[in-house]
């Protein structure tokens, strides 16, 4: 399948369409209780999608993702055995299960004209998770996808509306894979919600999953409800 895309302005996501897709997305989320909401900032025109969820996390870190890290606290965590220990003494001061608060935000990048996924996680005492700690809870098959996906890197960046550190999936190649899929979608007369399509691809890589019912999210339906 060719991925020609130079000058294909059709599939750049304008800000208006971004907002519309987000509104439709939130409506469906409300119907199924999936927890997404639209937040506006002080600048009236500006807003973003937001979802917070809590997860019980096992302390399982795949060996090849161990981070060379200065922070002593994190060294202690990474020194855990890979299976939860029956003996609380052996596990040291940390328990093997902890509640983690995950936050996901979808913002619009006017520079690249694509949505961008910002995320962060912290323990209940407020201590933030490092990127490797977050990856530790992502299924192994998605970890492989991170290597080959159409994104350059995950880095820590300043959230452009909140001004706080978040992790970000770099957006500059989003349009490559989105365009190819949307082109096919239009050929089959299917209207696809850009946000659903994009988030269902990038989300699982960072621990965020979309229930399949989002695939039905489009004004005009074809009988085939499967997302490309």
């Amino acid at each position: 399948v060719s991925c020609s895309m130079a000058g294909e302005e059709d599939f750049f996501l304008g800000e208006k369409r971004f907002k519309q897709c987000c509104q439709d997305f939130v409506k469906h989320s409300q119907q199924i209780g999936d927890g997404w909401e639209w937040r506006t900032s002080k600048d009236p025109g500006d807003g973003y999608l937001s979802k917070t969820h809590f997860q019980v996390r096992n302390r399982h870190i795949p060996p090849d993702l161990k981070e060379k890290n200065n922070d002593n606290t994190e060294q202690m965590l990474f020194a855990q055995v890979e299976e939860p220990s029956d003996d609380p003494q052996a596990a040291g001061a940390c328990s093997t299960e902890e509640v983690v608060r995950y936050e996901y935000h979808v913002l619009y990048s006017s520079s690249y004209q694509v949505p961008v996924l910002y995320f962060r996680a912290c323990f209940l005492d407020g201590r933030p998770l490092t990127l490797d700690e977050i990856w530790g809870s992502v299924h192994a098959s998605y970890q492989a996808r991170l290597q080959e996906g159409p994104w350059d890197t995950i880095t820590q960046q300043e959230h452009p509306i909140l001004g706080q550190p978040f992790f970000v999936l770099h957006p500059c190649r989003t349009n490559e894979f989105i365009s190819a899929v949307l082109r096919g979608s239009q050929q089959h007369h299917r209207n696809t919600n850009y946000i659903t399509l994009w988030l269902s691809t990038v989300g699982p890589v960072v621990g965020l999953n979309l229930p399949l019912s989002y695939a039905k999210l489009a004004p005009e339906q074809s009988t085939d409800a499967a997302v490309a």
Partner: protein
Amino acid sequence: MTDDKDVLRDVWFGRIPTCFTLYQDEITEREAEPYYLLLPRISYLTLVTDKVKKHFQKVVRQEEISEIWFEYEGTPLKWHYPIGLLFDLHASNTALPWSITVHFKNFPEKDLLHCHSKDVIEAHFMACIKEADALKHKSQVINEMQKKDHKQLWMGLQNDKFEQFWAINRKLMEYPPEDNGFRYIPFRIYQATTERPFIQKLFRPIASGGQLHTLGDLLKDVCPSAITPEDGEQKTQVMIHGIEPMLETPIQWLSEHMSYPDNFLHISIIPRPTD
């Protein structure tokens, strides 16, 4: 235009005299002397403070040392903002030298990005340049460059080499002869009083009729509160690289001549001093 090239040099070689003092609660083996340094406006704190770190590490106990971070009057300083921007935004109307406090403990996770190595600074710097070119040229110029050209931009900044940097950067400042400027202007407007860290929007340097948009046009469009009505007193200053450019200045010219090395115009809106 020899005058315009002088502006490029003046911007590049701007310095801020700074006094670094160790935070009083840091436990030391002996008294820590303050450290004085001229900071390049166009660079980043964590790129130019190796000597500061070495100086204070000598007196702080080894087990107390974690990632260094800087603070001014209680505000953690974002190392990923250029130094000149931080100064203009927080301290421009105060007496020199700029007094910065050095910390080795209690890294403010909610406020500051981590900076574990120079690679992080390079990645951030290059990401800004790429975003600026996405706005100016739909990324065409930056994508046509070789990796060694990208490296040269970074090395020029890191080693304070004006000629080395501009040998490549001049290509990022060009535009097709049929156009009169860039597609959109890379800029960010900062105000210390707002919760939002900065304002960034799409803005064209040329109006549909062909006239050049000015700095005043940009502010009116994006941040109208910065330009108070004529009948009121001007409560704020619009500052770039420590000066207040005339609002009539074409924004295309400002973008070409007064951008930081990351190719962005970083503009501060600050309270006008009352006396």
